[in-house]
């Protein structure tokens, strides 16, 4: 758990963080004794996940995975108890009591007091529940691995021959998407550097390894090159409940220029990035970069009146996005709210 809570840990992509969170919860559940599972799910797990969420306020992937895990636990226990107590119709089979935890606003899983069951039966039921939960969590973790495949399936449909595709910074998901399309199409990619992370060059070299002609340029040239672009492909940090996205600062330049040139913007994401938050402006969910960042090391202004303020994230409204490609299919921004019901 220390890995996730430590504020000085190295920056990892949301996908990796989400997978790690899920694995952590899986391990925690595996290690608890069957007798204590009820206690664990009701008290210890929410406490423990709250700590993680509190330590990573803007890492939506972690919060989302935790919510998803809770939802899974809820549904699997409910299903299990329904099937197991089908024969005992006198007992109430709806096993979940949902309590809203005011701090995280998420539903901790609870299992109704099984005092009505005898202790031996109870032990069996708890054993069964634990097994089911572990299985569904393992499926969830497997999904992370299958995610890229599912998303890249339709890559050749969207990218045509001789297209010029523009992308921002580095993303393994976008990289896999483009590589999958490159198997049957010849196209070019322009990579726009993410000034704050400086990862554009590594993205370029990775694409070049797969024989995709790549050009590297700076965010100042975004508007200039957009007149030649056919598509913009992005991977966000989080998908917001209104259909907009939060992604690295500078992405808004691409989407604004794309809209001005009528270039379609395709956003690729795994569903774990769906966040039930509504941002209203650029600073609702945002952070400023620390002045000790190596980016600013050469700057020194002679006056205390000068501030260096560089925001980390951009919020992009749903009107700037043409299409979402997720592992649950392709959707328009206006449909995103429906996915919440299915996912959480």
């Amino acid at each position, binding site marked *: 758990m220390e890995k996730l809570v430590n504020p000085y840990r190295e920056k990892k992509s949301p996908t990796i963080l989400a997978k790690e969170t899920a694995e952590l919860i899986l391990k925690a559940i595996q290690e608890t004794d069957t007798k204590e599972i009820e206690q664990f799910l009701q008290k210890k797990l929410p406490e423990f996940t709250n700590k993680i969420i509190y330590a990573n306020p803007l890492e939506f992937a972690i919060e989302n995975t935790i919510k998803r895990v809770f939802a899974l636990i809820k549904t699997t226990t409910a299903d299990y108890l329904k099937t197991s107590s089908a024969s005992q119709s006198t007992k109430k089979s709806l096993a979940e009591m949902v309590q809203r935890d005011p701090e995280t606003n998420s539903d901790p899983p609870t299992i109704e007091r099984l005092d009505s069951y005898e202790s031996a039966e109870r032990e069996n039921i708890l054993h069964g529940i634990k097994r089911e939960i572990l299985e569904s969590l393992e499926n969830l973790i497997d999904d992370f691995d299958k995610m890229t495949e599912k998303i890249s399936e339709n890559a050749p449909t969207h990218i045509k021959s001789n297209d010029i595709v523009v992308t921002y910074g580095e993303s393994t998901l976008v990289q896999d998407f483009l590589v999958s399309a490159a198997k049957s199409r010849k196209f070019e990619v322009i990579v726009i550097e993410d*000034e704050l992370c400086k990862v554009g060059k590594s993205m370029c070299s990775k694409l070049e390894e797969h024989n995709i002609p*790549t050009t590297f340029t*700076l965010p100042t040239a*975004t*508007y*200039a090159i957009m*007149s030649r672009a056919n598509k913009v492909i992005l991977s966000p940090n989080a998908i917001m409940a209104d259909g907009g996205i939060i992604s690295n600062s500078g992405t808004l*330049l691409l989407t604004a220029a794309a809209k001005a040139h009528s270039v379609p913007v395709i956003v690729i994401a795994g569903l774990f990035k769906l966040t039930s938050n509504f941002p209203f402006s650029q600073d609702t969910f945002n952070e400023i970069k620390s002045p000790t960042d190596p980016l600013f090391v050469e700057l020194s202004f002679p006056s205390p009146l000068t501030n260096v*303020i560089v925001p980390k994230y*951009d919020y992009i409204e749903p009107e700037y996005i043409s299409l979402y490609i997720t592992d649950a299919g392709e959707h328009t921004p206006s449909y995103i709210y429906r996915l919440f019901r299915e996912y959480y």
Partner: protein
Amino acid sequence: MHPDIICLGHKLRNNQITGTNARCFAILITLRKIIEEYRGSPETINKNISVLLDEVRAYLRTARKLGSGVESYLDNLKLSIFNSNRDIGLGLTKKLSDDIGDFIDQKIRKADDLIIKNGLELINDDDVILTFGRSYVVERLLRECKKKFHLIIVDNPPYYEGRQMALRLARQIPITYTCISGVAYFMRKVQKVFLGASSMLSNGALISRVGTAMISCIAHMYRKPVLVFCETYKFSEKTQLDSLSENELADPQALLEPGDKTTAINLRYDLTPRNYINMVITETGLIPPTSIPVMLRELTRIQGTN
């Protein structure tokens, strides 16, 4: 080739002199010096100076493309040599030297004074002004303004010209310095956007440092007025619809580490379309970008009658 010209060529090639006004000034001052130092026969002076001009222009073009303002002025200069009296002799050097001096004085120095005078009225107390990169006129304007305002300087990689501007204005104006990625974060709070120009085209488009089009696009998104400060000598009869049909490429190695094999594009300029620009401030007044061809016509008419 005169050593001053070689020196100038080096400076232009190595980005030691940047900014359209600075380059124009440097080129014309050096040219004037060379013309004044001409020691040839007075009989063939017209032809010799004409040839000298052409050689110098060709050499400087190999170092770096000259701005459109300079090119059109040098064309006029050549025309005036052609039209001048055959018997003028060494008086031609004086005539040309005076002409260049007048151009610098009227079209650059006095023009800037007037632009700043016009521009000072546009700044109000408690304004938040956003500017991009480093423009000589904008910097002077902000320095001479006595009102209380806040400045946001957006910087441009890879040459980071905004830093220079921030360093010079830091002591007297509260500044927020940021990268271009963060522009949208600040745009909401901004009242006006001040931009400098490399040239303005007859279709009202602005050619300026790469990144300016992006800033104007975002300003347009947030409905903020974009004001361009441009001397009339920078107006050009050309028209262009996008940034890529005609542009300058700077050294791509500036974007890469040594040893990187990626293809990089380092554009110098970009084109801001007419509808993103609200007003152009020139020495002749405040005009909309659509009036640029009108202004050009008036100026050539005035020049023709002189």
